[in-house]
């Protein structure tokens, strides 16, 4: 937050202008989200860490194989393509990190405050259970994708800058590198992929939130074990794997639904033509998932409201 907005929220400033009895305007949702970021610094540290890791990897690569990387990016177009692959691998790694961070965040979000009894402090303030739970759901659904995108852009710009520097030192032209990478195209795709995964994974996050609010302890076990049991039961009794397929579809299905990679419309992944937002939005499973997410979140709100302090 900027110092200016802090001044706006300064009640002392308000008190001088308004009558003391007049309640100040508050922003419970905004502050609830900020409070989540204060507590869970991994939300932004993990993506930044992975980004830094990738940059360090590139530097080590450049240092241990001098001449290899710049030459690779310089003249041979096929090799330059592989440079863009390493950018994409780093991006995928960050998407995966973002999912893992979001899942663990959700599992802790409603159980942590009960465990340390701080829920009694939060509930002593005029922030409704709905605002609190929505702010917690907002983190994996909106904050994490945005943070991940920012970290990705920062990482790729740093990588690009370092490569360009290395090339310049060697006196190699940097234009081919720029041409091959097409950053803005990549960013468009990343933004699309991040939005698609957030929507697709919404029921997973919401389910984990609900489990976190419901389970007295070990919310992770309660979230995972019943599913595993179902998978095993189905395999043993009917010798089918439909549950497993459904889980795996929920985890990875976004890729096939949001991008036109299947025949007959098969196009290269790197092309913007591979984006299929229309088809993605027309996927019934997306909307079923979102409806489930809404139900889970509503249940989590209700549970936090009704749960009595122990």
């Amino acid at each position: 937050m900027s110092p200016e907005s802090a001044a706006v929220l300064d009640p002392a400033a308000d008190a001088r202008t308004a009558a003391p009895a007049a309640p100040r305007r508050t922003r419970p949702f905004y502050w609830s989200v900020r409070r989540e970021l204060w507590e869970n610094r991994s939300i932004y540290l993990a993506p930044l860490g992975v980004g830094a890791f990738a940059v360090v990897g590139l530097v080590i690569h450049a240092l241990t194989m001098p001449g290899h990387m710049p030459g690779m990016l310089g003249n041979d177009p096929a090799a330059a393509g592989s440079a863009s692959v390493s950018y994409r691998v780093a991006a995928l790694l960050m998407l995966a990190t973002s999912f893992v961070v979001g899942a663990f965040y959700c599992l802790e979000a409603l159980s942590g405050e009960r465990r340390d009894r701080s829920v009694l402090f939060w509930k002593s303030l005029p922030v409704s259970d709905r605002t609190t739970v929505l702010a917690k759901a907002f983190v994996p659904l909106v904050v994490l994708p945005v943070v991940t995108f920012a970290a990705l852009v920062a990482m790729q710009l740093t990588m690009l800058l370092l490569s360009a520097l290395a090339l310049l030192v060697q006196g190699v032209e940097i234009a081919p590198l720029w041409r091959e990478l097409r950053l803005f195209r990549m960013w468009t795709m990343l933004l699309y992929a991040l939005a698609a995964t957030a929507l697709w994974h919404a029921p997973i996050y919401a389910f984990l939130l609900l489990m976190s609010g419901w389970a007295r302890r070990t919310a992770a076990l309660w979230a995972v074990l019943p599913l595993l049991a179902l998978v095993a039961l189905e395999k043993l009794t009917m010798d089918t794997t439909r549950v497993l397929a459904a889980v795996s579809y929920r985890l990875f299905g976004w890729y096939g639904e949001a991008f036109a990679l299947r025949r007959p419309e098969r196009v290269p992944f790197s092309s913007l033509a591979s984006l299929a937002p229309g088809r993605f939005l027309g996927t019934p499973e997306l909307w079923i998932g979102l409806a489930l997410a809404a139900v889970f979140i509503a249940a989590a709100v209700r549970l936090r409201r009704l749960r009595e302090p122990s």
Partner: protein
Amino acid sequence: MACIEARGLRKSYGTTVALDGIDLSVEEGRILGLVGPNGAGKTTALNAILGLIRYEGALNVLGHEPWRERDRLVRDVSFIADVAVLPRWLRVSQAVDYVAGVHPRFDRAKAEAFLARTDIDRTRKVRELSKGMVAQLHLALVMAIDARLLVLDEPTLGLDILYRKQFYDTLLNDYFDGSRTIVVTTHQVEEIQDVLTDLIFIDRGRIVLECGMDEFESRYVEVMVRPEHVTAARGYGPLHERQVLGRSILLFDRADRRPLAALGDVRTPSIADVFVAVMDGQDAGAAR
């Protein structure tokens, strides 16, 4: 106007009855002490008043039904459960920012002024503060909220005596203005004796004594009886009798002070003395 009004307030957990039909009326501007042994139902009563638990019976706090209208009630009520509930990862500055950001009646300047009088470093996290400092921080936050009802559940539990004394001094001098209502539970009864305007003893989910402190002082009298007068003193029907250093101390309820003064040294008992007397009477009654 009554700040808290309860009729037949009941709460049970399974077969355990925590509140067994409590009638209660607390006027605005009072400082009520809720005193009772562990498991007497003090915290349950406070949780019901705060809308944190379901209950049976009628309960009205500041014109609201706490359980159903919690979201509206919480604007007018401040509450310290005990010193351990501030999240340990929270920085002092963040705590102030957050409460300022969500509470319409929070006066940031006031909170800053309270904090300035302490040794609390604003960049510290709660986990890095001493227990006394955490209590000071919580009190600073709560006192800067212009609430009509302040509920304190064992607010000084585990604090050393300096902090405890300071806690109630600050509360009285800088917060209480005669129009707010304060409800406090504590084990350190002697420390709140001069603070309270009203007193309630609660045992096994029932109110066993309810009186104003003015009444308390005129009603109860303790006599350190000279050995030769013990039998005579017993004739006045003491509530309780105990031996201290070989001398009998008799506690009377609504007794005439003048004849008693002839039998020994007369003084107003502490809340703790009356508490012990009343609880012993309860146990005797229960055993019968």
